[in-house]
């Protein structure tokens, strides 16, 4: 009988150390939740969770420059993985600053634990290079989110939770069946195995199609976006902020790795064309639908659909430059979007989220600093200089024209033109002279932590807008 050998060594575990730290921190949060007096629980949970996320982010940076495949190719560490892990950690951290509104006081420990588990699932997706790891990461990300969506006393939160559960599980089912067909076509669960000519082209094409439908749903690309506005509106504000960036970053990491590194070259462009068409549809439909919204969370949901369309459009033609620009725009989008959510959090009262557009009427006179910050974030989302949104859009335009997708660049410009009207409707509401009793009193926020989020996001957008640095060395690997 052969001696028992541990199948995985320390180098394997070191690759998943950052996400393990993020996944284990919640245990400490839950433990402290049992011990500490009620008044201290939320503060302690937020502090511990933030420290855990920062530790995970710093540990992830250590792996820079030494790409390698851990767990027999199940998890690939490298520049690509690390950049996405950092985006997820930063997104989760800023969402955490808004978490003073998350659940009742006795639920806060559990809520914050779920938030971190969800983030660890997204971090697993960032490095996932075989079908099993992708499935596991996606379900870890989603299962925690189903619970988080319902964490509010409003009936709409429970409704959002049910809708998200049913639609997202169905999308997971599509993706899983696609994975089963891909396994049948190639005989391996490794993404690297997709590179070889498949044994059965029919199974391979069907599998790729179902797999991409599943991820188009998670990225909420049109026409798989119908769940997004409802779930964003119903879910508690910090969870909406978290979903708008962390789930998107996780899903984008998988779809980018799949598009760039895991498809046989001659056919790859033909297989991916539907994805670019979905991106084009999202850019138009997202912005047009945003025109009619009167709730800030719904508006940001539709604008997020369009913004993700821009990010996916940058990948068109799968050029190395396009991937760097997509990541740059994703980072810019994270700060612009979370900044806007932080402003909404500062307009929220104890039992009412300040997400109705009427809450913004006359804000420029009541709270000038807040209105100025919001204007800056909206300028970024609309793509005006000197924000990172402007540079990001220029970079995406140049890469898609270079890659031979000028029509996508044209659609992007049309989408941006429509979106300018959407965002400036809010700016006008904030600064227009209103008469009568419409003006509300200034809101005293429950916590000042979201101000920190506003500050970080504003500085980041300005700095990235003036000194755009797209990360280099980020080509995804599958083995």
């Amino acid at each position: 009988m052969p001696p028992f050998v541990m199948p995985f060594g320390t180098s394997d575990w070191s690759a998943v150390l950052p996400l393990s730290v993020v996944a284990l921190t919640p245990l400490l949060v839950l433990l402290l939740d049992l011990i500490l007096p009620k008044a201290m629980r939320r503060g302690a949970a937020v502090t511990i969770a933030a420290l855990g996320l920062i530790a995970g982010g710093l540990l992830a940076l250590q792996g820079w420059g030494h790409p390698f495949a851990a767990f027999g190719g199940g998890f690939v560490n490298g520049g690509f993985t690390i950049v996405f892990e950092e985006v997820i950690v930063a997104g989760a951290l800023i969402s955490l600053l808004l978490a003073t509104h998350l659940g009742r006081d006795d639920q806060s420990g559990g809520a914050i634990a779920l938030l971190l588990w969800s983030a660890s699932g997204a971090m697993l997706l960032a490095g996932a290079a075989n079908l099993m790891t992708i499935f596991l990461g996606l379900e870890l990300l989603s299962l925690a989110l189903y619970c988080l969506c319902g964490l509010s006393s409003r009936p709409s939160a429970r409704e959002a939770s049910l809708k998200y559960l049913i639609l997202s599980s169905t999308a997971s089912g599509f993706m899983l069946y696609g994975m089963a067909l891909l396994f049948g076509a190639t005989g391996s669960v490794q993404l690297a195995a997709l590179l070889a000519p498949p044994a059965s082209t029919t199974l391979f094409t069907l599998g790729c199609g179902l797999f991409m439908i599943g991820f188009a749903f998670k990225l909420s690309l049109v026409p798989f976006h119908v769940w997004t506005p409802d779930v964003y509106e119903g879910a508690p504000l910090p969870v909406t902020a978290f979903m708008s960036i962390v789930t998107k970053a996780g899903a984008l990491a998988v779809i980018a790795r799949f598009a760039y590194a895991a498809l046989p070259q001659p056919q790859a462009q033909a297989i991916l064309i539907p994805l670019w068409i979905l991106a084009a549809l999202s850019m138009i439909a997202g912005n047009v639908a945003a025109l009619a919204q009167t709730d800030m969370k719904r508006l940001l949901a539709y604008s997020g659909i369009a913004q993700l369309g821009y990010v996916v459009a940058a990948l068109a033609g799968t050029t190395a430059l396009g991937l760097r620009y997509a990541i740059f725009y994703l980072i810019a989008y994270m700060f612009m979007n979370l900044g806007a959510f932080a402003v909404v959090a500062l307009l929220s009262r104890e039992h009412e989220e300040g997400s109705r557009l009427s809450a913004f009427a006359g804000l420029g006179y009541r709270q000038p600093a807040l209105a100025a910050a919001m204007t800056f974030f909206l300028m970024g989302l609309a793509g005006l200089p000197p924000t990172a949104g402007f540079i990001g859009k220029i970079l995406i335009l140049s890469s898609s024209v270079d890659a031979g997708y000028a029509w996508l660049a044209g659609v992007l410009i049309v989408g941006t033109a429509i979106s300018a009207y959407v965002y400036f409707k809010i700016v006008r509401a904030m600064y227009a002279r209103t008469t009568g009793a419409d003006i509300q009193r200034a809101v005293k926020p429950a916590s000042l932590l979201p101000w920190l989020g506003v500050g970080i996001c504003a500085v980041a957008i300005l700095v990235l807008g003036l000194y755009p640095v797209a990360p280099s060395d980020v080509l995804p690997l599958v083995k």
Partner: protein
Amino acid sequence: MPVDISYYVILSAVLFFIGVAGVILRRNPLIVLMSIELIFNAANLALVAFAREWSNNAGHIFAFLVITVAAAEAAIGLAIVVVVFRRSKNVDVDEVAGLRG
């Protein structure tokens, strides 16, 4: 007598479509959750059949992973259904239409 793999794959495709039809057509959230389980199990059947075809154990391991995750998903799903319908007597997804869609 060995059975050709195509029968297993066709059966799994049929199960998959029954599941999808159930999600789209049925209004009871419990039936919808069952239909989602059916989709997952269709994938399991395909995975196990292909694992045998390719003599690759990865498919079996994947199927076990899916069973575990589907159990967690069902637990969370039933909990959410209970929370949503605790107040109303009849259980129907059309009743849950406060958000505009």
